[in-house]
């Protein structure tokens, strides 16, 4: 009995560990490497004698954040309970929900594999072949991230007004989201030990088999992480699919919201959407498996040889060129055309004011998110344990929820229970914190982990107090990570649409919401400056992400 109890609690802990890890990977498109989190439990334990609980206050702070992060889920559960089973049945088990489910399954099961194939081929070309201008193609492969997904679809719809439905949805989604796979796959390829491939080749496998039997399996973790990230984005994306006229749960929830504010019907759709998210998280855990690939022996791997392409170089170069034309050329040309047609008249004062409001919100949200992630990041590095794993899972899951679900919960709660917070910056910022917590965790964790406890102890050995040691060593070493966290969260906030639409205080317009209201009136010309400014804001952040991914990969 005890034994089985023990085993099941171990299983639970394991599950949380995996959820956490996958969520980490999910937003960790930079660092996703398949490497276990850089925690050294032994060292951590060494520094913290058992029996002492110096972390109680940090645990408390992390718990507060965790409680906040459970609010959206708790709210949906409460609504479900509140309206009663009969109502739930009529609202959930109806043909419309079935249609949306079919749409979602089709969208996911076509888009994700296509993105995988595209990302792996492209990553292989740029990392492991002698393709000319490899660096340039690598940059161009990341750059689409600087264009918000709904700007991608805006560009395509204004170029080909007939675009609609599943095919178009898949097409634009792949273009907008494949970099989420390219980044981790390229990073993983960069790090592979070519000795394994050599061994396989020496055993008589031809290059194709070497690729499929040794390289691809080693990319599995990167592929799973990137795929999960894309799959979750597809669930929560709103603007892209409205523009391309493809119904998903996110668009249907907003439709319901606009017809009846926060009705049980919209909350039930939110519940189904959450179930889809959890299903994807679970699926990813199943698919990524448990195998590890390790190198034995001393020294480090040599860089892999780049394969000669020969005549194949022509199609090989054509791929990134065509892709760049589709992902960057089309948005830039369309935007440029609208900007040209609009002339100076479209650069109204509202563009400047939306720009300023966006930057203020993005920075305030980014800083708050990073501060909120700090206790947990610190705990997970310095004192890993079961409780911490559970708290951490809370931090991560909430970031996988669509903005529309989080916003719906916060609208309902503030309007019913804490009216002073209703339609305030505070509530909007709480939504941002919840949505972008995992992003902030990523940068913070990695950088805190890179500041070894031993350095603190050495500092103390040289006469510093513990406080001074942490301040002068760990905090300073973690600062770049914190900055990256702020930037990552700020990038998310800049392009966030649904939560901002539903929660923003009166009179607040961000670039995204203004762009949205202009495109809803099909005023593509007036929308163009807002789209342009969003790209301008996102571009340096995206470049920073890329640089960061190279740094993590040790180059």
């Amino acid at each position, binding site marked *: 009995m005890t034994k089985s109890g023990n085993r099941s609690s171990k299983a639970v802990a394991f599950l949380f560990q995996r959820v956490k890890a996958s969520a980490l990977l999910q937003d960790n498109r930079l660092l996703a490497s398949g490497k276990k989190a850089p925690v050294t439990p032994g060292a951590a334990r060494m520094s913290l004698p058992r029996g002492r609980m110096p972390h109680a206050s*940090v645990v408390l702070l992390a718990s507060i954040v965790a409680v906040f992060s459970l609010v959206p889920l708790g709210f949906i559960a409460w609504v479900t309970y509140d309206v009663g089973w009969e109502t739930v049945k009529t609202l959930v088990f109806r043909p419309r929900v079935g249609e949306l489910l079919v749409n979602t399954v089709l969208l996911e099961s076509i888009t994700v594999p296509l993105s995988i194939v595209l990302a792996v081929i492209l990553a292989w070309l740029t990392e492991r072949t002698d393709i000319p201008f490899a660096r340039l193609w690598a940059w161009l492969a990341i750059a689409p991230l600087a264009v918000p997904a709904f700007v991608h679809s805006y560009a395509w719809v204004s170029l080909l007004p007939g675009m609609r439905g599943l095919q178009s949805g898949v097409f634009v989604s792949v273009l907008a989201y494949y970099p989420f796979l390219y980044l981790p796959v390229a990073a993983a390829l960069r790090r592979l030990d070519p000795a394994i491939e050599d061994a396989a080749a020496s055993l008589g496998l031809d290059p194709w088999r070497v690729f499929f039997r040794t390289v691809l399996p080693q990319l599995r973790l990167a592929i799973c992480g990137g795929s999960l990230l894309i799959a979750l984005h597809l669930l929560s994306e709103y603007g892209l699919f409205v523009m391309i006229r493809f119904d998903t749960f996110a668009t249907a929830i907003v439709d319901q919201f*606009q*017809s009846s504010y926060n009705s049980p*019907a919209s909350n039930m759709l939110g519940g189904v959407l959450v179930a889809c998210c959890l299903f994807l998280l679970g699926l990813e855990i199943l698919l990524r498996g448990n195998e590890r690939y390790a190198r034995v022996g001393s020294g480090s791997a040599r860089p892999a040889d780049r394969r000669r392409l020969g005549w194949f170089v022509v199609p090989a170069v054509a791929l990134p060129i065509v892709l760049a034309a589709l992902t960057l050329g089309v948005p830039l040309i369309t935007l440029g055309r609208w900007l040209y047609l609009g002339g100076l008249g479209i650069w109204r004062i509202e563009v400047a004011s939306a720009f300023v409001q966006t930057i203020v919100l993005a920075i305030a949200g980014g800083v708050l998110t990073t501060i909120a992630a700090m206790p947990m990041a610190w705990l997970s590095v310095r004192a890993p344990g079961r409780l911490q794993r559970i708290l951490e899972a809370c931090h991560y899951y909430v970031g996988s929820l669509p903005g529309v679900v989080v916003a719906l919960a916060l609208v309902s709660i503030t*309007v*019913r229970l804490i009216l002073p917070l209703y339609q*305030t910056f505070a509530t909007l910022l709480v939504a941002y914190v919840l949505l972008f917590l995992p992003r902030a965790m990523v940068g913070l964790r990695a950088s805190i982990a890179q500041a070894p406890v031993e350095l603190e102890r050495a500092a103390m050995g040289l006469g510093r107090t513990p406080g001074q040691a*942490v301040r002068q060593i760990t905090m300073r070493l973690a600062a770049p990570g914190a900055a990256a966290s702020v930037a990552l969260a700020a990038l998310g906030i800049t392009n966030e649409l649904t939560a901002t639409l539903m929660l923003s205080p009166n*009179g607040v317009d961000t670039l995204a919401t203004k762009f949205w209201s202009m495109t809803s009136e*099909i005023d593509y010309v007036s929308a163009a400056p807002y789209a342009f400014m969003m790209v301008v804001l996102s571009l340096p952040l995206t470049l920073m992400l890329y640089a960061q991914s190279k740094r993590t990969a040790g180059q």
Partner: protein
Amino acid sequence: MKIALNRLSGAFALAASLLAATALAGSANAQESEGIVVYNAQHESLGREWIDAFTKETGIKVTMRQGSDMQFANQIIQEGDASPADVFLTENSPAMTLVDGAGLFAPIEKDTLDQVPEQYRPADGMWTGIAARTTVFVYDKTKLTEDKLPKSMVELQDPAWKGRWGAAPAGADFQAIVAAFLQLKGEEATKTWLKGLKDNATPYKGNSVAMKAVNAGEVEGAIIYHYYWFGDQAKTGENSKNVGLHYFKNQDPGAFVSVSGGGILKSTQHMKEAQAFIKYLTSKAGQTVLKDGDSFEYAVGKNAASNDKLVPLADLNAPKVEASTLDSKKVVELMTAAGLI
């Protein structure tokens, strides 16, 4: 270690107080700032035109929040007395009815009511019409000739129309049309028609998107309101060059004229300014914005002329619908049941 923890919790406390401060600042702002908050479900551009003209004339500042009819109506009901809104503007009347039914409107001043003919405002005077729009069937001139057009909106439920027409069922505009249908034809007929809609029609996000689809030859026709066509014609016309307008007339549900409403929240702290705003919208000056601007909505003020290009309101032969009793809740219920939203 202790100090490090203190720093961490210090940062945390800072964050918490920052949140609290912005919250207070936010709510204080809403309470104390001069001027009024308008929940605008009308088109953003028209709302903006009206507000700018009003501010220019009176100096009263207006903060606008953009949304949709039913979203705001339900939102205002949930906000109750604490609603930050002073004025509510809609595209259609069912949302006004909903808020009025919850007893949240303050009576409109008599001078203001007198500026609008009785048929464009409810008898109780708790809100008033500020503009109007008529239902039309836009059709692809290259595919349909006049003899092939539906005589009544009801015909569109026939299998013969399967896959041939479109609508924007999630929008407040369309839900107002359904509300009128419900009042004119009853629940059973409405259910049947909605089922026909679900089976036959292609759903679009927004009236202008539906019209673009007709223009692009995706569907042969669509149920929308009239001014999207006029607006596009006034600009480049590229989204409506193949599109013709069919008015059902004959008091058909498809000839429904929908009244856009304006109301003042009972809870407002700025009653005078709010009254002045509604008075302005329905005044000669406010209605001239409709005549001369690019909204192409009908003016409803007494002796106010609409844009010359429009077929006059009086010639539309609209069905007689009691605007103040349109049942929006039932409509959302029926449409949810039909799987349209």
